[in-house]
């Protein structure tokens, strides 16, 4: 009965809906235009996040010769959901003398920039949430905001360890941001525009839509390496996970967080690393370009497939590196950033300059590669001497 | 090159003549170590060279101009330009008078220098002596060749300076020092007149150049006629006044009557100096200057200037001759004889006879230089003995000196056919035509000249060598043994470089005379110097009387001194008893020095003292008074003005500023925000203004 009432009632409201749908008022369109991309991003990427955690724990397990979580679901597939539930239901402890407002605000600010990053990542041909003509710049502007989250988290929890963690994190992120941006500048110089879509388009063409990827250019490869190192440092992944180095300072800036806030922090972190991977894919691995990708519905679908494949590839790499690389000491970390990455990125920009002006391809290739290799040797020689300096101990006076 | 160009060429090279001795003097003065040989050689070679040039110029002028008028080429150049009109210029002239004088000076100088090397042989300041000598020669030659009164005056002063330096060569002797000062001051007095003359000449004629051969700008002498028309001072025409003033200068320099006192004392210098300066050249400079400016003297016929000149000359001649008779120092006798001979020359010039004066000048230069050199040899020979009473009998010891000395004496005393006779005769002839009294006095002077020269000959060369008498008399006991043994060397003959010069000079002393005589080219000298001058007809009376007088002088000299020569140095002069008081009077030079001492010296001393007092009392007094007044005023200002107004006012002013400062300081509170507030307040006010404008 209820259904019939419903169905009877439906045509009555159907007409206005149909009218509504046929020529909806202007604000509706605007609302929809905004709603769809947000909906897509919020749906897809948290899902990816969830399963990244699972893959990560499984992969780490494999690397450490153990089986990852497989209790929940067939191969531990439901493990992320279990984690999610666990975190949501956990009691949310707030330190007594913590700065309540800042303590609450920190995780929120941690998530916002990561999500905003996704707005400029072109998932497929023509499928980009927002096509800003200052795409990359917007991405970097937003990513700097994540620094604030780290700091507020560390500061608000009134805990020496968290504060130390926050300070280290901020220092690390700030110092790695510069080489990352400069690496991106190299790509922007070649493409001539900041918008991610233009960058992705610039990498189409060539045999099977692959050879034009920037990673196959000498400066592209160097840029790719620099950018990924920067991205990992940015999101405090393994080789650079000083901030929440379990062995030293418990969980770094989010020690005092538990329950949902902790989940948000994790969400923010992982989303940031996935977004950065997305941007890396867009800039260096040809974004959505792959054999078969092209305009039109089917081409679009294939391009989406390619994008997510590369994204997965990048995520696996980061997990793999997390599993195999030792943690880097703080001063080496900073030294490496300022003394090797930064000069290399500048050198890379110069190499792009050569590339741009030397029209004859073979000469361009020869010159840029030799230039980059030479500088790499010089910088590593300089950096090397420092690394093996004898370790000096300074006891507290 | 025709004759005129050659003459012009020669005039252009005239300045070379003084240049050589000047360069020699310069080099010697710059020598670090006095090199005796070098300086002697330098001086003698320099003099030789200038002598060659002078003779060359002289020979060129002998021929006379194209049509036998006097050769006179001039070369003028501006030395100093005040403005486009007024300028000081110098110039050289080549005419008979200059050429003759230059030749004589260089020739006589050359031989005197040769003698000087011998005379000064053992003197330690040898180089300094020769340096002064060549400097003197240079300035004398400069004087002679100058065609401009300014240049002439400059060289005139240089000559005076050199004579000052040379007279006082042995400055460590007080008498020499006094003598050099006396000589310099006496000539300076004359120079004042000279300088006034120059100024007046410049004032009247507008130029100091004597001859310019330029009708637009005629030389001073070429304007002589015009100057004669202008009125001068003391009732004379301008030309005569200038002439008179110039003559005063000549009197100073040529030791005429009032200003002659310095010449005898000048004998303090070494004998070659006396020979060169006080016989041949410097003293002749005055006479030469008169000769040079002769057109001025004769411009106004009736003027009393010429008579004045003549009488001065005559008085000097007689006066100094009388003194010469009573002198015992060999050089003083010659000095006074020079005085009298100069008097003769001036008398000759005064008697309108340029030729006579100049001729006597030249001849006198030769034999007087000869006599002085002879005296020099005698002094060297007798080991620096100058007193005639201690000499005697040198005939045996110094035959050559004796021979030449006798020749010189004969020439000087006017023995017939000698140079002196002819030239003196000319003068006496000219004076005879002019004024009988002057002629008589002149003849008497000539007689005296002959007398004192023969006196000198017999005292010095005849009789017994009285060198050692006096010592044997009373100086015996304190002599050490060895010295007594040969207390006095016998006089000895002088080496060749001393007697050769006056041998040469004696030749000229004899022959020069003939140049002026009528028999030789009808008085060649006359035509040479001043052909336009009317030759006064020779009267036998004058010539005969002068010969008689000369012979009588010599005879009388022989009678008194020759027959019975003095036995002992201490014996009185044979003439003394006959003349008695007059002899003593003459010996003391007519007490002229004492007269000057009493009058001029005392007068200046008192004036000096008076002025010193005046200066001390009046001038200093006034100054001190003014100083005191100013000091008083300043005191007043200090008390009233400074203390009260300035300090007071100033301090209070400072105080107020300081207070203000403290207030303002408060504004700088150091609080940053205060500054910021003030800043924004200013901005607010600015905005406010926006409303009202």
């Amino acid at each position, binding site marked *: 009965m209820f259904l019939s009432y419903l169905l009877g009632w439906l045509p009555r409201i159907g007409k206005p809906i149909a009218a509504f749908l046929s020529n909806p008022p202007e604000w509706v369109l605007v609302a929809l235009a905004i709603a769809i991309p947000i909906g897509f991003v919020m749906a897809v990427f948290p899902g990816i996040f969830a399963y990244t955690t699972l893959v990560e724990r499984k992969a780490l397990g494999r690397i450490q010769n153990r089986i990852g979580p497989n209790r929940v679901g067939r191969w531990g597939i439901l493990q992320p959901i279990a984690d999610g539930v666990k975190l949501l239901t956990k009691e949310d402890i707030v330190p007594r*003398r913590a*700065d309540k*407002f*800042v303590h609450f*605000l920190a995780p929120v600010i941690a998530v916002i920039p990561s999500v905003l990053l996704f707005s400029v990542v072109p998932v497929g041909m023509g499928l980009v949430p927002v096509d*800003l*003509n*200052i795409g990359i*710049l*917007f991405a*970097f*502007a*937003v990513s*700097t*905001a994540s*620094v*604030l989250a780290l*700091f*507020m988290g560390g*500061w*608000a929890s*009134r805990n*020496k360890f968290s*504060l130390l963690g926050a*300070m280290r994190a*901020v220092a690390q992120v*700030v110092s790695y*941001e510069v080489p990352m941006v400069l690496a991106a500048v190299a790509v922007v110089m070649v493409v*001539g*525009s*900041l918008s991610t879509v233009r960058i992705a388009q610039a990498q189409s063409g060539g045999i099977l839509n692959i050879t034009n990827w920037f990673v196959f250019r000498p400066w592209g490869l160097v840029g790719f390496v620099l950018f990924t190192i920067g991205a990992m440092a940015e999101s405090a992944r393994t080789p650079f996970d000083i901030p929440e180095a379990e062995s030293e300072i418990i969980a770094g800036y989010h020690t005092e967080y538990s329950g949902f806030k902790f989940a948000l922090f994790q969400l923010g972190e992982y989303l940031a690393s996935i977004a950065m991977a997305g941007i890396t894919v867009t800039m260096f691995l040809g974004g959505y370009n792959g054999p078969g990708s092209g305009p039109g519905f089917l081409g679009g679908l294939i391009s989406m497939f390619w994008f997510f494949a590369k994204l997965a590839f990048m995520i696996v790499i980061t997990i793999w590196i997390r599993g195999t690389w030792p943690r880097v000491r703080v001063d080496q970390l900073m030294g490496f950033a300022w003394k090797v990455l930064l000069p290399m990125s500048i050198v890379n920009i110069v190499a792009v300059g050569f590339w741009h002006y030397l029209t004859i391809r073979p000469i361009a290739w020869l010159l840029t590669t030799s230039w980059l290799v030479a500088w790499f040797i010089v910088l590593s020689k300089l950096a090397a001497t420092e690394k093996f300096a004898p370790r000096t101990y300074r006891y507290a006076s | 090159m025709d004759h005129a160009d050659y003459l012009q060429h020669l005039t252009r090279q005239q300045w070379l003549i003084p240049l050589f001795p000047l360069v020699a003097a310069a080099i010697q003065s710059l020598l670090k170590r006095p090199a005796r040989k070098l300086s002697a050689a330098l001086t003698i070679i320099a003099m030789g060279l200038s002598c060659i040039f002078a003779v060359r110029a002289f020979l060129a002028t002998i021929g006379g101009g194209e049509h036998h008028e006097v050769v006179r080429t001039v070369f003028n150049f501006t030395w100093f330009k005040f403005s486009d009109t007024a300028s000081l210029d110098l110039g050289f002239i080549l005419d008979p008078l200059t050429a003759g004088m230059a030749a004589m000076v260089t020739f006589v100088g050359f031989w005197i220098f040769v003698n000087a090397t011998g005379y000064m042989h053992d003197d330690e300041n040898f180089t300094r002596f020769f340096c002064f000598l060549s400097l003197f020669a240079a300035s004398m030659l400069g004087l002679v060749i100058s065609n401009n009164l300014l240049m002439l005056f400059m060289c005139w002063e240089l000559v005076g300076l050199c004579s000052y330096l040379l007279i006082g060569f042995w400055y460590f002797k007080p008498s020499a020092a006094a003598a050099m000062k006396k000589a310099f001051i006496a000539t300076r007095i004359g120079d004042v007149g000279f300088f006034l003359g120059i100024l007046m000449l410049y004032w009247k004629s507008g130029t100091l150049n004597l001859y310019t051969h330029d009708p637009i700008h005629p030389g001073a002498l070429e304007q002589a006629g015009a100057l004669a028309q202008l009125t001068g001072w003391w009732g004379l025409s301008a030309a005569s006044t200038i002439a008179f003033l110039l003559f005063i200068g000549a009197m100073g320099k040529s030791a005429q009557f009032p200003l002659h006192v310095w010449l005898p004392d000048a004998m303090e210098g070494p004998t070659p100096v006396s020979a060169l300066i006080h016989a041949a050249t410097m003293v002749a400079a005055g006479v030469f200057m008169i000769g040079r400016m002769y057109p001025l003297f004769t411009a106004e016929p009736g003027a009393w200037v010429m008579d004045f000149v003549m009488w001065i000359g005559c008085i000097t001649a007689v006066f100094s001759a009388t003194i010469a008779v009573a002198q015992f120092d060999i050089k003083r006798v010659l000095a006074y004889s020079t005085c009298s001979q100069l008097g003769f020359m001036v008398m000759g010039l005064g008697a309108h006879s340029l030729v006579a004066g100049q001729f006597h000048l030249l001849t006198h230069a030769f034999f007087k230089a000869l006599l002085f050199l002879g005296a020099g040899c005698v002094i060297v020979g007798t080991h620096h003995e100058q007193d005639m009473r201690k000499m005697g009998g040198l005939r045996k010891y110094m035959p050559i000196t004796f021979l030449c000395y006798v020749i010189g004496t004969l020439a000087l005393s006017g023995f017939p056919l000698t140079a002196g006779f002819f030239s003196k005769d000319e003068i006496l002839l000219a004076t005879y035509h002019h004024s009988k009294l002057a002629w008589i006095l002149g003849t008497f002077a000539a007689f005296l000249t002959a007398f004192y020269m023969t006196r000198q000959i017999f005292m010095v060369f005849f009789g017994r060598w009285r060198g050692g008498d006096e010592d044997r008399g009373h100086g015996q006991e304190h002599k050490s043994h060895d010295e007594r043994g040969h207390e006095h060397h016998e006089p000895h003959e002088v080496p060749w470089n001393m007697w050769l010069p006056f041998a040469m000079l004696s030749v000229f002393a004899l022959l020069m005379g003939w140049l002026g005589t009528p028999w030789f080219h009808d008085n060649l000298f006359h035509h040479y110097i001043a052909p336009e001058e009317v030759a006064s007809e020779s009267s036998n009376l004058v010539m005969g009387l002068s010969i008689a007088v000369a012979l009588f002088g010599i005879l009388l000299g022989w009678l008194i001194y020759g027959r019975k020569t003095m036995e002992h140095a201490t014996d009185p002069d044979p003439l003394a008893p006959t003349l008695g008081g007059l002899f003593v009077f003459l010996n003391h030079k007519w007490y002229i020095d004492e007269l000057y001492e009493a009058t001029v010296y005392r007068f200046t001393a008192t004036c000096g003292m008076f002025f010193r007092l005046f200066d001390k009392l009046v001038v200093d007094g006034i100054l001190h008074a003014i100083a005191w007044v100013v000091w008083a005023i300043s005191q007043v200002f200090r008390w009233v003005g400074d203390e009260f107004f300035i300090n007071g006012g100033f301090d209070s002013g400072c105080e107020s500023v300081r207070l203000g400062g403290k207030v303002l300081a408060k504004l700088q509170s150091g*609080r940053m*925000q*205060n500054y*910021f*507030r003030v800043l*924004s*307040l200013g*901005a*607010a006010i600015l*905005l*406010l203004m*926006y*409303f009202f404008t």
Partner: protein
Amino acid sequence: MDTIFWILSIITIIGAVMAITLRNLIHCVLSLILFFLGIAGHYFLLRADFLGAVQVLIYIGAVAVLMLFAIMLTRHVTGDEGPREVLGGKWWAGMGTAVIIAGLLWAIIRKDQIAQALPAGVAKTSVAEIGKALVGDWVVPFEAMAVLLTAALIGAVVIALEEVIRKR
């Protein structure tokens, strides 16, 4: 469109006011960040999106972080704000002048007729254009800016660093 302007303005002003009134320094900085975001929003509203991005990148990314560091370094680590009173010496003079200036400006703008103007056309810039301009006719200020920033960098390091050297 106008509503967005009002919203952003309110956010900016609230941010600014809170930035200078709050007692706790960290909160001040956070409100300052809010203020910067408001300003960035205005830039995007005025279609100067490159400026918006730059504003976010520089101010929020760098200056805010710097402020936080400064606060960290200049207070006891615990960072409690303590009972000390907030306002400085003659605060009333400062407030007074600020209010006067605000009033005057308000009066001027209200009266002034330029202020009534509406946008004449649609302003649109592209980053390429700005890039070309920066390197084109604005190259001298651009290079000068580079020098200035380096100097500021070195200066800041030198001033802040001195202590470390002395200690060792």
